[in-house]
């Protein structure tokens, strides 16, 4: 209170110099306290800022894995939500705010996000996270890819020229993603390498442990024939021994046509197929038509972390999907 009054008096002409000295004298102890407090606050603030790696990921699965590897060293945001189509994310300028201050950018890569992430990156004005920079992590590095086409032809629909990009739907590929993310974190924060490596080991062990459980649950349904809406389940299919007979889409990205529905209905009847798997961002109207005709069950699976409120981590994606599909195949 006294401090405020002195400041007011200071502005009176003539008394200026005298009042400043009074102020200095009376507030010496006060100032000392303030400077100690400021120093501590500054140190804490600096430490907090220095200790947090700002990461932006394209998908929520990458966010989940980055949080598991980075622990309390990272603050992660994802551009896409877990319940939207990763091919068609709208490149809203608001995403650029986070990208402009990011230390690390993690992308699924291949050409999954080609319609939106290059534009956002180019507008971010952040050299740390551009392709080729230490802060750019392509999670598909060293990934064993499936469905790599021998020729690129758009007459085949939305094909991916580097291979099917939905690789995160095989939990073992999660380990490759985690390795790539750990490499990225270690490039931007070499001092905490030991922490990231320890978290990576824990992540890998969790995947291995859970794999036993997931495999056991899926074992009775090995070889089960199913229909999928879009060609995004090949990694899940191969890992858990399912057989996707056909897709609701006649070609990737082309909505179901009446002739395709007739074809699918016939395949369901002749193969005794029990399940159509779809994703949260596809309309179920055509699948419902097929269900009505054949009695097949339509299961909306989680394609990413956050697809449904209970799917909170990368591990939950498989817990959820395996629970859904095993229940439907019974």
């Amino acid at each position, binding site marked *: 209170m006294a401090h405020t009054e002195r400041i007011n008096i200071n502005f009176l002409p003539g008394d200026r110099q005298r009042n400043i000295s009074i102020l200095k004298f009376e507030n010496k102890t006060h100032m000392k306290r303030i400077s100690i407090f400021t120093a501590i606050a500054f140190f804490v603030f600096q430490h907090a800022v220095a200790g947090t790696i700002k990461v932006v990921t394209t998908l929520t699965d990458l966010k989940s894995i980055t949080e598991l590897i980075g622990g309390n060293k990272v603050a992660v945001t994802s551009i896409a939500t877990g319940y939207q189509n990763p091919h*068609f994310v*709208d490149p809203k300028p608001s995403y650029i705010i986070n990208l402009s201050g990011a230390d690390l950018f993690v992308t699924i890569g291949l050409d999954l996000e080609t*319609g939106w992430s290059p534009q956002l990156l180019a507008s971010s004005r952040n050299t740390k996270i551009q392709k080729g920079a230490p802060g750019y992590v392509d999670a598909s590095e060293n990934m*064993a890819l499936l469905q790599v086409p021998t020729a690129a032809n758009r007459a085949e629909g939305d094909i991916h020229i580097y291979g099917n990009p939905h690789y995160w739907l095989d939990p073992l590929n999660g380990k490759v993603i985690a390795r790539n993310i750990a490499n990225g974190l270690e490039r931007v924060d070499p001092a905490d390498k030991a922490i990231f490596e320890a978290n990576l080991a824990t992540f890998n062990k969790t995947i291995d442990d859970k794999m036993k459980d997931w495999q056991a649950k899926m074992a009775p349904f090995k070889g089960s024939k199913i229909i999928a809406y879009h060609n995004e389940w090949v990694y899940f299919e191969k890992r858990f021994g399912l057989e996707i007979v056909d897709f609701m889409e006649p070609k990737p990205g*082309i909505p179901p046509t009446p002739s395709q529905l007739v074809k699918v209905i016939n395949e369901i009847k002749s193969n005794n197929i029990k399940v159509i798997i779809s994703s949260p961002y596809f309309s179920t109207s055509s699948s419902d038509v097929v269900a009505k005709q054949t009695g097949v069950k339509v299961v909306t699976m989680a394609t990413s972390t956050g697809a449904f409120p209970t799917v909170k981590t990368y591990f939950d994606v498989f817990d959820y999907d395996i629970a859904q599909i095993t229940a439907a195949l019974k």
Partner: protein
Amino acid sequence: MNLKYKSGGYFAVVLFVAIFMGSLSASAQVPADSTSKDSTVADSALLKQIEAQMQAAPAAQPTGTQTRSSLSFNPDIGVIGDFQGSYISKGEKNFDMYLNETEVSLQAAVDPYARADFFLSFGRDPVTGKYGVEVEEGYVTTLSLPAKLQLKAGKFREAVGRINPTHPHALPFIDLPNAYVNLFGEEGLNDEGVSLSWLTPNKAFYQELVFQTTAGYTESPAFVRSEGNHLVYLGHLKNFFTLTDNATLELGLTGISGPNDSARTTNVGSFDLTYKYKPVQMNTYHSLTWQSEFYYSHNNQTEDHSVDAIGLYSFIQYQLAKRTFLTGRYDYGEKPYNNSIKEQAYSLTFGWYATEFSKMEVEAKTTEDNIEPRFYQAWLRWIFVIGAHGAHQY
């Protein structure tokens, strides 16, 4: 056979690494001079880092990795065809059809510091019917300026509101709004010069400030290329708000000043407002866009005579289903050189977007002004893309 091939591959890798390490150690064994102590320390630190990285590397190599092929330094190349048919209720020739434009895009990073974008347009002259080529856009953009700055130089569509920066094939209607054409012409404000944009440190919402200086475009009704040293100056403030996960609002303010055909100055002020509703989960099925722009121009014709003109458009685009869109638009425009000529128009466009690479649209429009009787126009447009297709602005 396969195994033999693989072991050969491993041998080559080991040999390469050995040669690489050899050359490293050779460079480390350069005879020491009096100042080499620090560099030796630095080298050994570097070697330790390399060794550490090489130890980490094998863990990142799962089996069955496929190599990627067809890499090249060629830019991303795309060709966009724009075929149109048109009808107009007045004049001698009522029907026409033409390949309105063929746009060739070439886009790539130049080096770690910049990227380049070229759009070459092969268009048809509406009068002679002959095809000619022009550089629609060709510019270099920096990727690495400090302080959140980005510099662009070349020929580019200028940052006036929402219509001007967008290539016409990406607009949800076939003709351009009257108010826009009255000021900037059919080709838009597309000029040669430099552009500096700054991403403000505002964390609450996206805010970008753009300054552009250009030489003056000869075909724009508002501005001409100055015979002297008079350049066109433009400032644009873009504000983008995320209202909810599903809704956004953009508010833009633009000011332009440049030489006109009376060798004096024309000043243009514009204001744009765009509301978008796109439910994140079902964004490929449903969306709504309401976009409006208001223009004001002050055209100094002589020392004591100037013309003030205004114009605006407002459209609503509604997505009916995954591939069908309906757009209704209202136009009002005055001529920047004669504000007693007033136009008003209504149009409706139906679009069928087959894929990301082709769309068909049909538009009907009625125009009335205070000079000639009401007339009607209709267009049919088929846009088709081959090769790379760059992302559009949101």
